[in-house]
């Protein structure tokens, strides 16, 4: 008999149907490519119109004209912009992001070194945000209008509103300077440098694998403050969104159904409402994670954290455009990648989205 959809056909006008798997792969691939081209092109153009002079970044301000001109030619800056861009792209495709002026090393090597530091920081911050923010948000929704809700709201507001660079400085002063319970800036005590071989680049993992527990705990100590500071916004955002999603779900009729069944309130909340919230949260958490990966510049600056945000920023100030583009591309691709991943997870978690 006739095809029936719960929505009814009338509701389906202009609704796109889930494309087949080939189409999805194509979309994934094309969005990565487009993002890559877009990011590199914009950064490239910015790099060329910037008043900062990459040649001077190398030769210094007292360089004579000859030295300057030689470097100018060597860097290929005499070629038309589009040609420079194409050369750059073709190098990148072959895995060559060029050399960084600032570090005198291959940009790729730098990225391998700096990115894990940011990854470590952002991951921990996201975990803090999720494991504290989600229960806070759920609690606030369940006890809507009560003191716990207000507390969560105030915490959320604070996290939303506080300038992170200022908070970081104050926290450093209090916990390191006055109380002396947490270590100062940096990723690890300098004299531990080189004790652990970089395998993944993430010190926690590397030191654990190599059973250098002293280094491990030192790294943990160093992580606490910056990751907490970085997490303030994530925590506020996640708690707020969880609360709002949860309130939404608690007003749904299936929650009433669950209650009619005689379920305990905790089963109603965690077993039913929260499962639906989780589906929505995936996107939010993905977004937060991506934004922490790219938004850690200030935290990294305050805490002397050798991460990619600081790398890109310092490179930018030094007109080190290879490094800037390389870093931006990595962060941008991560952003797209996390979005795609959270999309996929979303589809996995929400049966309605699994178009089969």
């Amino acid at each position, binding site marked *: 008999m006739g095809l029936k959809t719960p929505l009814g056909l009338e509701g389906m006008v202009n609704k796109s149907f889930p494309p087949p798997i080939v189409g999805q792969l194509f979309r994934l691939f094309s969005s990565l490519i487009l993002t890559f081209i877009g990011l590199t092109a914009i950064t490239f153009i910015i790099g060329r119109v910037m008043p900062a002079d990459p040649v001077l970044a190398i030769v210094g301000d007292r360089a004579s004209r000859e030295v300057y001109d030689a470097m100018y030619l060597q860097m290929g800056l005499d070629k038309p912009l589009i040609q420079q861009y194409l050369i750059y792209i073709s190098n990148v495709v072959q895995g060559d992001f060029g050399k960084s002026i600032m570090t005198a090393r291959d940009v790729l090597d730098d990225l391998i070194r700096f990115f894990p530091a940011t990854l470590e920081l952002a991951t921990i911050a996201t975990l803090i945000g999720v494991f504290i923010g989600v229960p806070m948000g759920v609690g606030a929704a369940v006890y809507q209008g009560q003191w716990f809700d207000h507390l969560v709201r105030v915490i959320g507001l604070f996290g939303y509103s506080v300038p992170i660079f200022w908070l970081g400085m104050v926290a450093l002063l209090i916990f390191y300077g006055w109380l002396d319970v947490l270590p100062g800036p940096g990723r690890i005590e300098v004299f531990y440098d080189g004790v652990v071989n970089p395998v993944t680049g993430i010190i926690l993992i590397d030191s654990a694998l190599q059973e250098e527990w002293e280094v491990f705990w030192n790294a943990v100590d160093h992580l606490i403050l910056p990751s907490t500071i970085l997490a303030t916004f994530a925590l506020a955002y996640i708690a707020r969104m969880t609360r709002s999603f949860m309130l939404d779900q608690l007003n749904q*009729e299936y929650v009433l*159904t669950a209650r*009619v*069944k005689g379920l305990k309130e905790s089963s109603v909340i965690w077993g039913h409402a929260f499962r639906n919230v989780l589906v929505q949260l995936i996107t939010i958490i993905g977004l937060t994670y991506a934004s922490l990966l790219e938004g850690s510049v200030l935290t990294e600056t305050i805490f002397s954290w050798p991460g990619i945000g600081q790398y890109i920023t310092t490179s930018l100030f030094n007109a080190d455009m290879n490094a800037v583009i390389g870093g931006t591309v990595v962060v941008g691709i991560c952003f797209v990648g996390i979005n795609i991943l959270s999309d996929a997870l979303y589809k996995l978690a929400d049966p309605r989205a699994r178009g089969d």
Partner: protein
Amino acid sequence: MQYLLNVEKLSVSFETPKGVVDAVREISFTLGKERLGIVGESGSGKSQTGRAILGLTSKNGSVSANHILFDGADLSRMTERDMRKIRGARISMIMQDPRYSLNPVMRVGEQIAEAFRVHTRASRRQAKDRTIEMLNRVKIREADKVYNLFPHEVSGGMGQRIMIAMMLIPEPDILIADEPTSALDVTVQLQILSILDDMVREQGMGLILISHDLNLVSSFCDRVLVMYGGQILESLNASDLNNAKHPYTRGLLNCLPSLERQGELAVLTRDPKWLEGGYNIP
């Protein structure tokens, strides 16, 4: 008469930004092992009556009653903890639209089985067997396949049958059906009602059918309560509907278009006196 439920002077009111709204005003009725219909237009308080019995009035509402007697206990004075033992196990409720009343991220079978496991010590296995059996009873073919479907994968009619299965699996004494068919096509509507009919007969339950469709209720139920403005205006046997005395009931009947009648439809004119008890027919 032997009644399952005895409601006396039940009131429900809501705190809204625009002030307190009385949704239900001191209504009293009883329910035996019968099919009782509650009819009314939107806003008449019929759905709130059903929810109040189960103690599921939303947070901004308040309920008061002289008593809601069920099996010797007064539901209106019960703790939340005791109420949970009543809900599902003794009194169940089916809601209007299975699209919204089923949890979208849970397999329908699990949702039914959960309703069973809450009130029994059954194992997962037993619960599943029982669920499949129940699905068969609500005339779902390939029940084991349907068990693993998600709510969005089933049609409205099937969804409503799944709801029925879920609500009847612990074998309650009373079932409240809140507009169980108004989101469905007419043919499916009849089929759903016939299943409810079977269940009521087989299990000897009391059924409260809440609906806005006077025709449907009178043809399905044994007794009909007509609600308007939070009050019960008239209570009559379904077979006596055509002899309804209250002008509201009569007006409702007259304004329905039908195949037989032609020309201008009668328009219902409302009288504020209805709510002042002038026409209250016990």
